[in-house]
């Protein structure tokens, strides 16, 4: 127990604090290796690969692109709303987004 915080600090990209969740999506659903996934995400975000792991740059960029931020902010996309925007930005079909569209007839 208690290892997860340590791994996140030692080696992790930082999840939603940065762009870790976006890079992980490309790994999981496209089978991209880390360098390719980082380059792809940086390109789609209009950022540099170095920016992806910077919590300051990414907090602003995530808010601008409306793809979800860690701290509660009024009017910004949350949960599934953010994933609609992520799917569009990364040109990636996200399973739950497609399921949502089908269920509400979009």
């Amino acid at each position, binding site marked *: *127990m208690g290892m997860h915080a340590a791994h996140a600090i030692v080696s992790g990209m930082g999840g939603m604090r940065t762009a870790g969740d976006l890079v992980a999506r490309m790994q999981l659903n496209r089978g991209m290796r880390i360098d390719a996934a980082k380059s792809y995400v940086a390109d789609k975000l209009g950022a540099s690969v*170095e920016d992806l792991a910077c919590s300051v740059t990414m907090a602003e960029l995530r808010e601008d692109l409306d793809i979800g931020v860690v701290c509660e902010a009024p009017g910004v996309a949350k949960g599934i709303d953010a994933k609609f925007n992520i799917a569009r930005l990364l040109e990636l079909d996200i399973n739950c987004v497609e399921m949502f569209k089908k269920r509400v007839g979009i």
Partner: protein
Amino acid sequence: MGKIVARMGDGDRVDMTEAEVQQDLEDGSQDAAERAKIPPLTSDEIAYLMELYRRKDRVVGVEDSKACCLSYDNQTSKIERAHIPVSKFQQLALFERCLGADTLELTHIDYSFKQVKHVVIYDKPNMEQAVLSTIAPIFYGAMPNLGLYSVPDGPVANPMDLIPMDKIDEARESYAEMVEYAISDMVYVGSQLYEFGGCDGINFDTTAASGDAEFYAALKAAEILHEKYPDMGIEMGMSGEFILGMHAEIEYDGVRLAGLYPHEQVKLCEKAGVTMFGPAINIVTNQSLPWNLARSITFTKACSEASNIPVHANLGMGVGGVPLVLHPPLDALSRASKAHVEICRLDGL
């Protein structure tokens, strides 16, 4: 020569000389190289590890450019297991928003596909709600756990009862029957959680704990799911570095599974449609951590070099150079984490 405070594989602290650490690093790497017929670590890599042990820092970390993605096993049981009464949804939110998780995983506390089958009806709506409120990619995970399909836990005659009676053919028939049950459960659970729950992927965790037949079952389940849902993410995390030959003759795609090491396992996973692979290198508790770390990195590096899909090495209690204790010490964990990611150029942990 200075003194280095290291640890044994069981976590006990031990004073070692620099010469002893150097020797253990070389011996651990050589052990892996000889077993798997792969190259040992280079002298530069041994020097890198030596420097890591010389450092007095309690915590070390990777270079910024080498940060990787984290995936988990049994994530929504982690906090619950510490007797903190929070729901699965709250645990997902804690991991996503407080613990910097790059991926999430919804799970049942009894973390095996056979047991999950009975509660799919409850976990499906849990997943439907989880995907509405979270942003990070989310798995549904469980273990293939083939052992649960044999007596006394399941319907099939136990091969471990048959083998001592020299009933080898009957034992193999039992394995074949267990495999069919396991594939059916894994495909059922995976399909339900992906098609109706909306998850991004399925995590087969601790795969091949029951040996080659279990690895075969997981590969076939992955193959069927991949064919059914080509966009599904599939992670396969292993249970050990070596596929035990409990059946001994079972093959996947013409390759005998018994005796495969991680750099060979990952190639079959690619063929089956797996999108992320997790090698697991077990700790030898009566060897030092330098020995174990060098050994684990040697196996994992060969795997990462052979792989075309992301490699998320298992670095937890008793695997990947992390001592076999419930609360791994920061000095050992951070060294194992940094060294694996940097030397093996890992995609994740």
